[in-house]
């Protein structure tokens, strides 16, 4: 068994986001173990009710585990309440999109990290949302689940939605993440496989990898922000560095 310490937050650490039991068929630790076997450096668990010990999992399987939450609200108003309640408690906060109102709301919140599955259901995306997401630093999720697990008309719709999203994101340089939205650990796929699938459906393989690494960057950034020494971006509490004093 691997007992190597996780090396989170190196520049291109590949992460995946996943729900866990009770909202998935696998527990957080089983998801994390599978992610480690598939070659991921870390995993963001998106279920609030899941019970797990990130440190113990990291110790045993050599994979970084971040506490996340995916807020599933019917309306922007109830989502807004959840953001206030959970922002400080979780490292990565995502809002599940899928309606135009929720998509619009999510990309205009500085405190939201990720807008998940924006094109699902009745949801859509446009240039206004793409610009707003850039301004507020909200990552837009590319959902590869239907590409991997659907066939026929549903997959065609999902593919054309991904294409539309990709064109908008490329045009406005919107930050994005990539996920397969697994419902069990058997739905996970290795980064190399996702690169291959991405290439087949018109994505640049490096672009897919960057989307997986973006989860890792989010985790690193939010952990730093949550640490005691952080005051504001670029401002840190601590000792003067020796070099600075000598030059004064």
């Amino acid at each position, binding site marked *: *068994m691997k007992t190597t310490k996780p090396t989170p937050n190196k520049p291109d650490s590949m992460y995946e986001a996943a729900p866990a*039991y009770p909202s998935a*068929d*696998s*527990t957080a*630790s*089983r998801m994390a*173990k*599978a992610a480690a*076997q*598939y070659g991921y450096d870390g995993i963001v668990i998106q279920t609030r009710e899941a*019970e*797990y*010990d990130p440190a*113990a*999992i990291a110790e*045993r399987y050599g994979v970084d585990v971040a506490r996340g939450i995916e807020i599933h609200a019917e309306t922007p108003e109830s989502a807004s309440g959840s953001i206030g309640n959970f922002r400080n408690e979780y490292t990565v906060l995502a809002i599940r999109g899928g309606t135009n109102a929720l998509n619009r709301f999510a990309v205009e919140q500085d405190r939201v990290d990720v807008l998940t599955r924006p094109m699902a259901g009745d949801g859509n995306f446009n240039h206004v949302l793409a610009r707003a997401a850039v301004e507020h630093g909200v990552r837009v999720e590319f959902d590869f689940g239907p*590409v*991997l*697990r659907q*066939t*026929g008309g549903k*997959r065609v719709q999902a593919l054309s939605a991904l294409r539309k999203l990709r064109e908008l994101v490329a045009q406005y340089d919107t930050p994005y993440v990539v996920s397969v939205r697994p419902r*069990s*650990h*058997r*739905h*996970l*796929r*290795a980064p*190399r*496989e*996702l690169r*291959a*699938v991405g*290439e*087949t459906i018109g994505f640049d393989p490096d672009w897919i990898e960057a989307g997986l690494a973006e989860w890792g960057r989010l985790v690193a950034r939010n952990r730093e922000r949550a640490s005691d020494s952080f005051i504001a971006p670029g401002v840190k509490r601590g000792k003067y560095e020796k070099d600075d004093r000598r030059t004064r």
Partner: protein
Amino acid sequence: MKHLPKHIRPRWRYLAVEIDAPIDASFDRGDFQRELWYSAGNLLGDPGSADADLTVYMFSLTDGRGEAIVRTRRGETGPARAAIACVHAIDDTPVGVRVRGISGTVRACEERYLGRATGAIYENEVAFGGDRRHADCRSDELAIHLPTATVCATQLDIE
């Protein structure tokens, strides 16, 4: 028919594929091959599928752990990987698939990537969610049987 001279025979690549299925899974080589062809046909289309020419060469499945060798044309390993990644269920049994590696010969593929020990299975009663539950265990992985579903867990969840 007389076979082709060596220098004009197609070149092949062999992908070692790992399959993770529930312990009671009972599909065979033919089922995996059919699913792979469906997946390639749907993702790559007929021409892409013909180019990739995916053939299951070797297949074994014991207690939900499977290993297979899939042959593809040299230069088509990318599409082959993509088609394999899109196999998510075989005979309605959910499966996880992963390409362990690629070799130029069956023998190298076998020697380098296949034949890994899977560990014995034993049954156990475990405490999960405040109840005693029946579970199938292998090394530190468990399949815990709840009244309505089966949850995949690890030893960490019951310690």
